[in-house]
């Protein structure tokens, strides 16, 4: 039955080559930890993606309860943490995942750096990777404010003060992020929108580019 359905769709959309390409591409020995244990360093990219998926899924569930305004934000998080079934786990996954994804991404970047995999012809993929890195840091920074407790508030305040000290552009950046002159109601809604829509959108686009390039170029050869 499924086979017939598949064939029906395939006849019309020619989908076979798309997934065959992903399924059949070769994984060479030098990146396969089953053959060389030290090749585990090549897992970090995949693990980063794994945690990224966890972040996106847990984040989607968090927005079911989170309320982005300065009066309710804190209490919605408190409610989520203590009253909602499995709320503590979902929030815990998003909280610890945010750190873990940075660790994994860091290790992945170091792997690419020390194996010299960023060299021709993979320069563009490195640049895209660095952009992903910055987007991830942006996600960390904007997400940190959302629980709206003192730690969130004061970290954002010093963070924006640092942004404000950038020569020439600082004041504009600061005011744009603040949504005014102080860290307040506007800042929270802005950070929420950036954290939940703008940056994940950019991240997904960049990841698509990242993976497309890896498939086109293949993994870098053995050293």
């Amino acid at each position, binding site marked *: 039955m499924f086979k017939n359905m598949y064939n029906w769709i395939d006849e019309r959309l020619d989908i076979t080559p798309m997934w065959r390409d992903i399924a059949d591409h070769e994984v060479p020995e030098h990146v396969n930890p089953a053959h060389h244990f030290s090749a585990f360093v090549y897992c970090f990219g995949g693990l980063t993606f794994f945690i990224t998926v966890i972040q996106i899924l847990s984040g989607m569930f968090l927005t079911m309860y989170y309320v982005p305004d300065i009066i309710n934000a804190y209490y919605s998080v408190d409610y989520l943490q203590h009253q909602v079934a499995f709320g503590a786990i979902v929030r815990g996954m998003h909280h610890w995942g945010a750190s873990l994804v*940075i660790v994994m991404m860091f290790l992945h970047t170091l792997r690419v750096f020390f194996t010299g995999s960023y060299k021709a012809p993979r320069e563009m993929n490195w640049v895209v990777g660095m952009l992903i890195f910055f987007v991830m840091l942006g996600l960390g920074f904007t997400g940190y404010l959302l629980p709206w407790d003192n730690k969130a508030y004061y970290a954002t305040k010093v963070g924006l003060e640092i942004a404000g000290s950038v020569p020439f552009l600082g004041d504009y950046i600061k005011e744009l992020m603040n949504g005014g002159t102080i860290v307040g109601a506007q800042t929270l809604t802005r950070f929420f929108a950036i954290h939940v829509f703008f940056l994940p959108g950019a991240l997904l686009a960049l990841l698509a580019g990242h993976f497309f390039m890896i498939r086109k170029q293949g993994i870098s050869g053995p050293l």
Partner: protein
Amino acid sequence: MAHKHDPNEKVVFVGDSRIRKRDYSNVTPPDYTAFPGKSEAFIPNFLLKEWMVGVVVLVGFLVLVISEPAPLGYPADPLNSAFIPMPDWYFLFLYQLLKYPYASGDYIVLGILGLSGLPFISLLIAPFLDTGKERRFYRRPIASSLMLVSLVAVAYLTWVSWNHYEHELEANGQVPEHIERKIKAEEAVKAGKPRPVPGKEKIPAMVAADDPAFTETMTQAQCIACHGAELEGGGAPALRGIGDVLSKEELVETITNGKGQGMPPFKETLSAEQIDQIATWLSQQKAEAAQ
């Protein structure tokens, strides 16, 4: 399909249809000889192994998540001047770097552009700076040593920043708010009370509100400027119900010598007798007496 059709006939498109009809009956599997050694197909062979690594990571991760609940402090209070700002750990190195005198103040341009911007931009365009063909790190001494030095610097700065934070906490006699809150919640639950939600606690009513210790001495001493006109709290903690928390001796001590960073000492402005009156009145502020 109801009407008569040749069952072997494929859909045939006419006109400008862009879907090409292909025949997959004799596709040759992709070539695995480009790399030396034992290659294998991504699906299912390799993905299953990768998934096993993923499962190990996932289990470790979930153990962490369950054993260590995500922290939450007290609601943001823009007037809280004693709170020590603490960015997330992966920003600490930058935070610390920009505290050094030659990277801040008059030298902030150097700090931001030179010490932070330049390294990040170089990292961004690394492939265009390091264009040699050599890939092994031990044959690329400049690139590798620059990276190693940066790593050591980042680790060191992070450590300094964290250490500094711990010392500051200790010097101010503070506990991170999420820990304090957790301890208080545990105590309340143990005592059979409902888990307190910070900022939504019911403050007990005032006992003997017409006592001159409050209406005169405390009002003139400006206690209410910080603790609220009804002692309901504001910039400083609420004092209604304080009798349940502090003894009279502790109250005398707090008022005489101050507390933490926000509470000033009153030994100069108030006489010992006045302080004693206030402390006596405050020690009567108990939740039970208020009912």
